[in-house]
């Protein structure tokens, strides 16, 4: 049995930048525990000498000529911005004054 505590879920939620309610944490604790129990089946396999597969096919990293191409028009790029100022995306202040 994988033991998952609500505090584990809260920690992972912080890493994932999710703010969960107490009810959500309780439900996700149960779901995560069920999934981790299920995937624990993989431990039955000896994979000591097995290489991991990240992609089904080995493709060399493709290279392209370093050539300037016209960028996306800033007006179009900013078209979906929730808030903007000039040609910048606007977010709440990150540093305090003098910080």
């Amino acid at each position, binding site marked *: 049995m994988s033991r998952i505590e609500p505090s*584990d*879920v809260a920690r*992972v*939620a912080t*890493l*994932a*930048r*999710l*703010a*969960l309610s107490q009810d*959500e944490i309780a*439900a*996700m604790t149960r*779901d*995560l525990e*069920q*999934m*981790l129990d*299920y*995937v624990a*089946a*993989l*431990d039955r*396999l000896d*994979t000591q000498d*097995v*290489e*991991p*597969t*990240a*992609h*089904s*096919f080995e*493709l060399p*990293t*493709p290279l*392209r000529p370093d050539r300037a191409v016209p960028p*996306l028009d800033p007006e*179009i*790029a900013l*078209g*979906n*911005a*929730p*808030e903007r100022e000039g040609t910048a*995306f606007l*977010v*709440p*202040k*990150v540093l305090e004054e003098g910080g």
Partner: protein
Amino acid sequence: MAKADSLLAGDLSDLRGALDRRDCSAVELVQASLDAMDARADLAAIVFRRDEAALTEAEAADERIASGKPASPLDGLPVVLKDNIVQAGEPATCASRILEGYVSPFDSGVVERLQRAGAIVVGRANLDEFAMGSSTENSIHGPSRNPWDPERACGGSSGGSAAAVAAGLVPLAFGSDTGGSIRQPASFCGVVGFKPTYGRVSRWGLVAYASSLDQIGPFARRVADCALALEAVGGHDDRDSTSLPEVVPPLRSRLDGDVSGLVVGLPKEYFAPEGAQPGVLARVREAIGVLEGEGVRFVEISLPHTAYTIATYYIIATAEASSNLARFDGVRYGRRAEHPKDLLDLYERSRSEGFGAEVKRRILLGTYVLSAGYYDAYYVKAQKVRTLIRRDFEAAFGECDAILTPTTPETAFALGAKAGDPLSMYLSDVYTVSANLAGLPALSVPCGFVDGMPVGLQLLGKPLDEATILRIGDAFERRTDHHRQSPPGPPGSPGTD
């Protein structure tokens, strides 16, 4: 108009012929498709429409056809896209609140190629949020319904695309398949669904779920139409670094019904009596009999790591999802929480308000398996088992040209039946995820019915060898009429009660 209407339920070659003979126009076909969407709004298959733009594009197609120069075999034909494949100027919600109001600033590679081919995007199809699900119930647009029985799910996550083709709204639709999201809904809705080899179709402009598994592919009523679709949209794209350099060979012109001498493997793990509904296995065995009659030789094979595919998939897919979905942070596009007190609050509340429960569940699981102390035990372990699963297929393909299995263990389940039980929902992909883990091309073809609901058989091919599975699927269609069956019409229409 009646002509365009009835043609819509046919296959692409019928439609092509009708357009080229001027029996009907592209404008009439597109209008018929839009009318059919109105008539079948009850299915909730289509979530956005392009009525005006589509009719304008159809006029241009009619001019090309009238001048005897259609752009391609798809010129003038209406298609729909899953709402996670972007088109410039159009929404792409991915069925998520976090992308409500988003308008794509660019075209996906698939849209560019479809436009070059003259195909006309008439609408966008429902899906499970960010393609995470197997029923098209996890959607801000509400659940899509199965045309064969509106109380049942149409499968997922590309359920709207499957339902749209099954109900005759369009002859061709596109979806994405990460663990079975094209094949499982195709099977549930009684249409052909095709996931090409990983890397065959550009994913530029496909909203990423699990990047080492995602692949775009078509739905149609005929295997030959799926072959044509891959010819149109497949091939290398510089903007997708996993896009394969190989040229897509001619596929449709080589479908001649001859399958004699082909050797097809039947993995014993996929035919275990406790694994699937007896009726599903019976239909698939009947299909095997049909193909044997055509000279296919069947051999029993083993894929020993089959029991581990779902566990492997859910570690790898959720890990990749947790990384891919980090981009939805309320800064550059999508939903932003109101009155954030600082940047962290903006991130956390925008994401928490924007994502649904299944997406949060997968982000949490993925973040967990990637987090310090668990990375080797879960993520690297799953990648190693992925190697074992891939080797199973390499060994099997030493003995056979293709592999045949049921597409799903059961026919379409009732809406809501699995909603409270994530693991049981995940297990409905038990026969389809291995093709994604191994990168193989895979096809689901209708092979009959159980209690009035469609059953699909799945064909798995060697990497890049779409030609063989298309050949087998097409040969099967030539000897059967399952693909010609149509679901009942809209509620209240003649012939329904």
